[in-house]
């Protein structure tokens, strides 16, 4: 049975049903099997070099951006641009950004869209996933088919644009939320989890007089907190990162999300309408250097992903594999 078929039938796919994956090794336990030959020093060395290079390739740019955003005018001038070695911590760029103006507004817009969007998406996705998780319910297969078919059909940018604007969503923040509110992929993941909950639990609840909403709320949700957290992170990151829909639908730059500001300000090099007021804090440079402000915007744009990431990351392998198999 193909993986997709397993998903459609609501089973949690196993890559090889005959051999379930072995239990994870305990941390620090001796792991190399006796029959395996000891590693060659050259191989080990190469492996170390490659992996270190990869980790650095990810962390180094983030480090320089952070350090530059905290650098003073003198440091930036001395190094001729991006700063690698920190000399001092100068928060004036951040003070400048948050003292009002376009960037503050964009941060607010993005936060709003992310919070409202994630809530809407999670509620609708969880409801739909539960609604289609009963194997023998009415119309459950045609409904599922309706959802899964979207994987194969590409509706096209122009008709989508016409529908969204035709609904009067142009320049409305809902245009950043509604068209992308449902991710069928996430829905399939949650549904697979619901279907894995033992039917006896549901039956018992029903005998005690619980309705479907109550079963969902008091049985399903508490049992699938991990996967819902992961899916919530996916949705939140999606909304926070939304750029293209704002290009299509938001002309009014008071409603620009942060990604749009980042693009116009840093990639296209236009200057944002910041307050323009000098920062009046004792001991802080009057006008923060432009590059530091730019890098501060980058830091702010990255930040939410990095803050949430560690909390949800441990659920990845458990939560995502279920759906990731689908691709």
């Amino acid at each position, binding site marked *: 049975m193909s993986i997709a078929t397993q998903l459609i039938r609501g089973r949690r796919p196993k890559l090889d049903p005959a051999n379930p994956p072995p239990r994870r090794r305990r941390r620090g336990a001796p792991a190399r099997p006796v029959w395996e030959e000891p590693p060659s020093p050259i191989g080990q060395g190469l492996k170390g070099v490659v992996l270190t290079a990869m980790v650095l390739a990810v962390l180094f*740019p983030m480090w320089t951006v952070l350090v530059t955003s905290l650098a003073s005018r003198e440091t930036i001038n001395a190094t001729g641009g991006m700063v690698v070695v920190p000399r001092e911590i100068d928060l004036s760029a951040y003070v400048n950004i948050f003292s009002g103006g376009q960037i503050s507004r964009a941060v607010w817009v993005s936060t709003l869209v992310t919070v409202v969007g994630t809530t809407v998406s999670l509620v609708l996705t969880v409801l*739909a996933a*539960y609604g289609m998780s009963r194997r*023998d319910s009415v119309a459950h297969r045609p409904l599922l088919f309706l959802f899964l078919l979207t994987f*194969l059909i590409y509706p096209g940018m122009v008709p989508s644009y*016409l*529908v969204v604007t035709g*609904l009067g969503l142009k320049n409305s923040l809902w245009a950043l939320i509604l068209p992308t509110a449902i991710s069928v992929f996430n829905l399939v993941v949650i549904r697979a989890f619901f279907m894995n909950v033992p039917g006896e639990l549901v039956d018992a609840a029903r005998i005690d007089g619980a309705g479907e909403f109550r079963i969902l709320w008091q049985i399903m949700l508490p049992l699938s907190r991990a996967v819902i957290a992961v899916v919530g992170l996916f949705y939140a990151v999606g909304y926070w990162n939304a750029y293209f829909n704002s290009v299509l639908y938001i002309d009014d730059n008071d409603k620009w999300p942060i990604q749009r500001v980042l693009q116009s300000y840093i990639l*296209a090099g236009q200057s944002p309408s910041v307050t323009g007021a000098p920062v009046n804090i004792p001991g802080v440079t009057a006008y923060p250097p432009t590059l530091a402000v730019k890098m501060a915007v980058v830091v702010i744009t990255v930040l939410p*992903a990095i803050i949430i990431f560690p909390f949800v990351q441990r659920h990845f392998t458990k939560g995502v594999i279920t759906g990731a198999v689908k691709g």
Partner: protein
Amino acid sequence: MTSTDTSVTAGSGDHRGRRPPLRARLRRDWPLLAMAAPAALLLVVFHYLPTVGNVIAFQDYNPWVGDNAFEAFIYSEWIGFGNFETLFRDPAFWDAVRNTLTITAFQLVFFFPLPILLAILLHSILSGRIRGIIQSVVYLPHFFSWVLVVTFFMQMLGGAGLLAQRMREAGLQPMSIMSNPDTFIVLVTAESVWKDVGWGAIIFLAALSAIDQNLYEAAAADGAGRWRRLWHITLPGLRPVIVLLLILRLGDALSVGFEQFILQREAVGRQAAEVLDTYVYYQAIIPQQWGMGAAAGLFKGVIGLVLIIAANKFAHRIGEQGVYSR
């Protein structure tokens, strides 16, 4: 996929044969239907309605002939394949198609294998803690937006970036990797690798941990060395997943991503960076050439569908399961 009831429960076998009548089941299940309804409604409005809306590819669509979008669609003139003729006669369209296919092919060769290699490499790390740290770090960029990824690359490799800075200091002629159309394809592939190689490895890691350890032991007992075990056990173990992802990738051959290209189109020029999606945006949405844009979108959608079905057929022929069975 039409569901006669027996076929649905054939596997589970509980209610087989004696099912309550439809009306009773409706009365029992209506809360479930109500729960699925809002999401289904959103899909119908924002996915299926535009899909149907593709008929304007055969119209000289004029948004102003009626009072609203729907009336405009009713009153617009039908022109058959006129839009497709205009489209296919536009050399810029074929440039975009060529760019898209070149980038897809390039990424297939230089990006697709990397997550597999990375997964094998990560899998070979015995210390769970070190592996966990590395995994976290390489997953991270997947959660960055394209705007951020391009910004990071620009600050490192662009004309005002760190590399150019250092080269200027060393008395060399600084170069901007970000605005060179000749190496653009390498640049976008490098960006994709930076963003997604770790994330792409997750699924292969899962497949790796599902391979039976006894196979390795048996092979080792038979005298197979490390590389032979890799070749005869690990790779065959990964094969179904590789084929599956390859099919999905082929189905997306005409969509290489939109944001990455629109963000960099200015810097390297249309010649190198125009892909199908940006073509639709610049040639149809901005100048409001709705009919032609819909034609281009339809072209892309249909080819994509054909490709994925064909690739799946092929997978079945060589004995793999593919995305869907049958």
